[in-house]
């Protein structure tokens, strides 16, 4: 490895030998410090820019298309029908399915990794979960089309394998890394003394987990679940490839075995083909605006719980 971490003495020596003899901040240093301070504002600026440009391109929707048109149940942009309901319900349905798949799996796996697994198993599982997070969504979508969908067609009796269920399964697995790593962090943060006290009172390891450790970590676990669901709503490529993309109203439980179309997939599939500046183009941006708001609120709540606990927030983002 080419990094030799310094010992404290070496670090000290480095400073002594190279520091400015007059010990004054030079102009260059002040400029660099100024630059560093300004970049902090950049982050806020970027978020504001995203909102502004979605509004700039999507805002016209509300003058061009009537609210009545937007709230109908038909999405036929070519004939001027811009009903968003099937798309919103499609997103909700797939996300709900993904939550049903990923919340229990994610929580139980996090408990296993944090509380039960022997050290060597943990050392294998943690990098593995990171690798799962790194698999591109388009690769998962590709596998969903070629491997998962045929299985669903065959064993669930769906007319086509490209269904809301396939989308929920793929999304569920894609949300898992977020849920597992954040929930595991929360469990790790529970003081050891809590567990020791429970064990000393005669509780089994199993009882301690569910009556002491998990309840103590509950706000972190909730954050994990919220962030996981937030990821699922915004997922695009895998969903577009496996859900069949039929813009129909999913109203019954049986709709899980039918194709649906989500908001994200609609944007990704249609933006390439619309005329810039037309009503259809503006509506697609307006859908983006809706997605932005939904994820914004979810993340705001998650951020609030994190700040309240004064936790580090690093793992939430990766």
């Amino acid at each position: 490895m080419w990094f030799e971490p310094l010992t404290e003495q070496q670090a000290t020596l480095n400073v002594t030998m190279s520091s400015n003899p007059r010990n004054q901040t030079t102009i260059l240093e002040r400029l660099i410090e100024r630059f560093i301070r300004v970049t902090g504002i950049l982050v806020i600026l970027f978020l504001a820019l995203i909102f502004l440009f979605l509004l700039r391109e999507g805002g016209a929707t509300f003058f061009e298309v009537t609210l009545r048109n937007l709230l109908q149940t038909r999405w036929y942009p070519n004939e001027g029908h811009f009903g968003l309901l099937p798309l919103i319900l499609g997103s909700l349905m797939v996300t709900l399915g993904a939550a049903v798949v990923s919340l229990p799996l994610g929580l139980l796996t996090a408990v296993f990794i944090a509380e039960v697994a022997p050290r060597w198993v943990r050392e294998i599982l943690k990098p593995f979960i990171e690798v799962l997070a790194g698999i591109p969504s388009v690769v998962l979508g590709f596998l969903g089309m070629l491997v998962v969908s045929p299985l669903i067609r065959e064993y669930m009796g769906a007319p086509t394998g490209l269904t809301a269920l396939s989308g929920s399964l793929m999304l569920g697995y894609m949300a898992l890394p977020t849920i597992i790593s954040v929930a595991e962090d929360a469990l790790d943060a529970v003081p050891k003394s809590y567990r020791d006290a429970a064990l000393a009172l005669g509780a089994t390891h199993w009882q301690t987990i569910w009556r002491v450790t998990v309840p103590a970590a509950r706000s972190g676990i909730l954050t994990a679940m919220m962030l996981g669901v937030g990821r699922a709503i915004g997922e695009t490529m895998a969903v577009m490839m496996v859900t069949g993309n039929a813009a129909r109203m999913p109203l019954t439980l049986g709709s899980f075995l039918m194709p649906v179309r989500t908001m994200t997939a609609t944007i990704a599939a249609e933006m390439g083909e619309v005329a810039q500046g037309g009503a259809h183009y503006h509506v697609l941006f307006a859908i983006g605006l809706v997605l932005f708001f939904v994820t914004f609120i979810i993340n705001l709540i998650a951020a609030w719980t994190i700040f309240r606990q004064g936790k580090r927030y690093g793992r939430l983002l990766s």
Partner: protein
Amino acid sequence: MSRQLRQRLGFTLLSLTTLTVVLPILLLVGYIVVQGAPAISGEFIVAMPRDGMRAGGLWPAIVGTVLLTLGTAIFAVPVGVAVAIYLAEYARDNLFTRLIRLAIINLAGVPSVVYGLFGLGLFVIFLQFGASILAGSLTLAIMTLPIIISTAEEALSAVPRSFRIVSFSLGGTKWQTVRRVVLPQALPGILTGVILGLERAAGETAPILFTVAAFFLPRLPHSIFDQTMALPYHLFVISTQVPGMPVHIQYGTALVLLIFVLSMNVLAAVMRSRFRAKRQW
């Protein structure tokens, strides 16, 4: 049922659940390797695609993804590391700092396709870069920032306070301390975060859909204002848009993309564990 028995059953359930998470992933990745390996050859990597992508190689898509990843790094690394230094070394715990952290968490949560819309609106249309490597890189860079910032900040905060105190006590200024003591110590951790962020950028499709990706362009880009093919988008195209596509080429492309992305992941993991083993604090 005795408590011990219940515990044993419970632990079995937990192991089974974990297996349910791990096994399908292993199987699917293994399946890609098995199905894709026969397609991979020297020609598959360095040849231009032919016959409407049904034959030939991936060269322009691979070059495009490398260029986009580099472009992302050029924009995202300096800004990301600077913000991390600000948060870890300069920021006080006040409203402004909280606002920045809030913005970072929210940037991380913006759906990738919304980044695509944003890139289209700002870089392609408003700034008139057109669909280009420049617009795509900038879009990916902003998407990557939260990951780089958060991992870099964690690496910086992990450097013990005593290092800074020693530096100050010897007369080092704030910036000298950051530049010559804290930054070198945190460098491996920062690089790990940078690689993880770039890995994410390299594998993304939705943000490049409208900002740079070309459907079929069997030549290398001439400038940063040129469109380019990219591996993730190419995989999407050949698996959904091209009828009669040979399956082995699809699996081969998926495998190349997977190797490209996961090798960055492995690199980051190796760097981190090496560094942890050598660290003396």
